[in-house]
């Protein structure tokens, strides 16, 4: 069996020292888990921040004992200040987008399962892989350190628009060292993601085992591959934007700062730049980024729906091509975040058309998921529940995108809670549901033990209903004009909406609380769960051919050969209702 690479010719025996085995490991499986736990830690932080935000929104004078210890300036006496709300919001958005949704679905599950699903013993560049994880880790630490610097975390949102983010501490609290650290953290994160992305691409292209044609890749692999391409091409731009923003902040340049600004009664010593330039560079990355967040979830969902409907995925090719189409189009639409930003209104035209066009591959995916369920024999495992939930949430969130994509409607909806509702539906929950589904599905493989299904179902139903209660009302008040990034409601027309906010806050506290069911389930099952067999779900792809958990080099020195596509379920005329990818038996109607 040929190995198309030199570097995986690394040790064929596992390292034994703790530090090499668990900390600076080169094994993709360990790195995958490291990413997974990094994301799990981040999501808990992000969730707690969202609690604090929700509490401040409806009970601005609530006293939270202990919060003043973390942040004496932000919450004197435990009462959050309005600007501290913005700090929390900035970190909530940044953590969730970068350190949760760019890590777990792609670098976590992808790292663990991409090599196994394509029949390789590791990623193409194990050393680079380790480097990307530790780079990401450093980025997270730098970001969290903003909590402990004197002027606190930045208040400019996860988008960090200059001049607010560029002119320094005179623009507001958190705009000093905190904002500088934020920029540095994101720049470091870019490097980690770039290294990860090129690793994924090289692995998918080069390390597929014999018979693993491109059109036999599980859809998860397609999703990770397209995601990696997006990451490679878009993080490079964000890196440039961060470098220039950093120069504006500390070097005195004015790429993003025009002349004649007066901030806090001081004339700024800048001239000649434009905030629009930053917005372009940021969203050039920002829009592909949101698909980086969702594509792996789509892959996982497709994989799981086919497995538990016990029938082939409906329209495999269309599913793969629509992933590519979404990836391609994602570079042509970023201006839809800038319709009202002062951008040329003529550009808005083309951005809008392409944005609407993204609805088409998304529609293909939605219909094909429905087509897969049609005529199946659905088994409602927790993983399946979350996958079906994913489809529901994606449709809800995606359709609100159709409103926002029209520049003529944007004046009503831009920067309102309608947008917040939109992206929490698709990203805040649909993509997170993809991660939940992946966890319930692959946990047995990763940890060799089953998760508790009953608690899994409780977790699903409470979360599913909970998130609809949190985020659906945001559409309603958004349409009426509730503005995002407001820490308190003082405008006449916003005050009557406070009861809705109270409802959402209570729902958010509840939904957050039930996540602990999930966390306990994960950690309890890791040690105490029922032992898992090699193929508990009767899946067909290669990860189910190896022991749970897989040995150090995945296939114990052997190299599987692949004969079939990944979704041969319910094959007529077979005694088992599925045919594994590496099973040499013949199937009629095989592609």
């Amino acid at each position: 069996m040929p190995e198309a690479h030199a570097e995986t010719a690394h040790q064929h025996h596992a390292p034994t020292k703790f530090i090499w085995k668990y900390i600076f490991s080169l094994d993709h499986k360990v790195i995958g888990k490291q990413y997974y736990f990094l994301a799990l830690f981040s999501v808990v932080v992000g969730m707690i921040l969202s609690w604090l935000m929700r509490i401040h929104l409806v009970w601005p004078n609530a006293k939270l004992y202990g919060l003043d210890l973390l942040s004496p300036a932000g919450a004197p006496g435990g009462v959050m200040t309005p600007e501290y709300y913005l700090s929390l919001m900035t970190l909530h958005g940044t953590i969730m987008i970068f350190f949760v949704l760019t890590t777990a679905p792609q670098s976590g599950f992808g790292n663990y399962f991409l090599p196994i699903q394509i029949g390789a013993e590791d990623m193409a560049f194990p050393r680079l892989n380790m480097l990307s994880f530790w780079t990401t880790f450093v980025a997270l630490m730098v970001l969290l350190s903003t909590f402990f610097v004197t002027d606190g975390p930045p208040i400019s949102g996860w988008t960090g628009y200059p001049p607010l983010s560029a002119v320094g501490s005179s623009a507001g609290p958190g705009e000093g060292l905190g904002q500088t650290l934020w920029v540095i953290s994101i720049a470091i994160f870019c490097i980690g993601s770039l290294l990860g992305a090129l690793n994924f691409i090289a692995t998918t292209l080069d390390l597929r085992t014999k018979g693993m044609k491109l059109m036999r890749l599980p859809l998860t692999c397609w999703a990770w591959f397209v995601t990696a391409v997006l990451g490679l091409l878009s993080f490079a731009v964000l890196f440039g934007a961060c470098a220039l923003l950093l120069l504006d902040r500390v070097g005195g340049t004015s790429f993003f700062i025009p002349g004649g600004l007066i901030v806090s009664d001081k004339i700024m010593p800048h001239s000649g730049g434009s905030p629009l330039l930053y917005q372009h560079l940021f969203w050039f990355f920002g829009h592909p980024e949101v698909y980086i967040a969702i594509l792996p979830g789509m892959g996982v969902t497709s994989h799981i729906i086919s497995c538990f409907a016990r029938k082939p995925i409906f329209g495999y090719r269309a599913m793969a091509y629509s992933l590519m189409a979404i990836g391609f189009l994602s570079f042509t639409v970023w201006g839809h975040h800038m319709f009202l930003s002062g951008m040329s209104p003529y550009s808005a035209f083309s951005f809008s058309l392409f944005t609407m066009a993204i609805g088409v591959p998304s529609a293909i995916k939605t219909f094909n998921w429905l087509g897969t369920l049609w005529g199946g024999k659905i088994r409602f495992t927790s993983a399946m529940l979350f996958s079906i939930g994913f489809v529901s949430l994606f449709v809800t969130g995606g359709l609100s995108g159709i409103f926002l994509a029209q520049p003529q409607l944007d004046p009503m909806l831009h920067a309102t809670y309608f947008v917040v509702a939109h992206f929490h539906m698709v990203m805040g929950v649909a993509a997170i549901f993809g991660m939940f589904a992946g966890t319930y599905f692959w946990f047995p493989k990763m940890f060799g033990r089953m998760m508790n299904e009953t608690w899994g179902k409780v977790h699903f139903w409470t979360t599913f209903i909970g998130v609809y209660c949190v985020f659906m009302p945001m559409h309603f008040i958004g349409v009426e004009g509730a503005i995002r990034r407001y820490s308190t409601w003082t405008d006449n027309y916003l005050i009557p909406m406070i009861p809705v906010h109270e409802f959402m806050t209570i729902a958010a506290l509840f939904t957050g609380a039930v996540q602990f069911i999930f966390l306990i389930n994960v950690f309890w099952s890791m040690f105490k769960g029922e032992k898992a067999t090699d193929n508990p779900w009767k899946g067909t792809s290669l990860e189910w051919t190896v022991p749970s958990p897989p040995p150090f080099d995945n296939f114990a020195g052997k190299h599987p050969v692949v004969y079939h596509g990944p979704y041969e379920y319910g094959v007529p005329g077979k005694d088992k209702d599925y045919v594994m990818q590496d099973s040499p038996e013949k199937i009629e109607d095989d592609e």
Partner: protein
Amino acid sequence: MGLAFFVVLVLITAVSVYIFGAHIWWPPHAISTIGPSVDHQFNLTLILTGIIFVCAQLGLGYFAWKYRDRKDGRKVIYSHGNNKLEAGWTIAAAVVFIGLNLIGFQIWAKMYFTPAPPDALQIQVQGQQFAYYFRYPGPDGKFGPTHVEKVDDATGNFFGLDRDHDQDSKDDIVTATLGVPVNRPVELILRSKDVGHSFFVRELRIHQDLVPGIEIPIHFTATETGRFEIVCTQLCGLGHYKMRAFLQVMTEEDYQKWLQSQMAAQ
């Protein structure tokens, strides 16, 4: 479990459709000439996406219920897809989405491509942390130049006018409320003193960022009198949430009176 899915999805769909349909929360009545067409496009989009929403959610719930595993030895439909069907919904989706957008573009064109009519009343709008100020050209119809170094919030010189030397500045009127006459085209020239802000009046269906460094024109014609809130929607710092001003739409007479009183107060 399948039935539970069906029921929950039906409930979610029904409640959402009801709340949207009953207009429990709804944009306020539009008071600009552009307003009704925006609302029309909004309703059209709402109906279209509403239908898709209902069909997709109910379809999902129904399939989950109907095709649950009943352990009855039924065979699944072994299908890898159906190219005709897939092509069909691809084309349908493309036509619906792109068509919807093309219908609406003329509204956007009216907002931004066509310049304000030449007789439009020009008013400068300046956003700053955390207030708006408005400047009227005064009887001479000309805005005087601004000087950065003259800006002084303490003395109320928000724009940096030099009334002693610049002839055009002498009669400029600076106010904290945006007063406009009804049924007359108004052109606003938006600018920012420090960081990015935004100008949003729900009733006008007008919304535009104030970008530091450039002056962005927008125009509208108000069709009803009244007092409306102008809110800042671009994150601009710690007082973002309380940055607002009022738009006062008046009859021509009231407007002239108001302008006189503002001029007297300079």
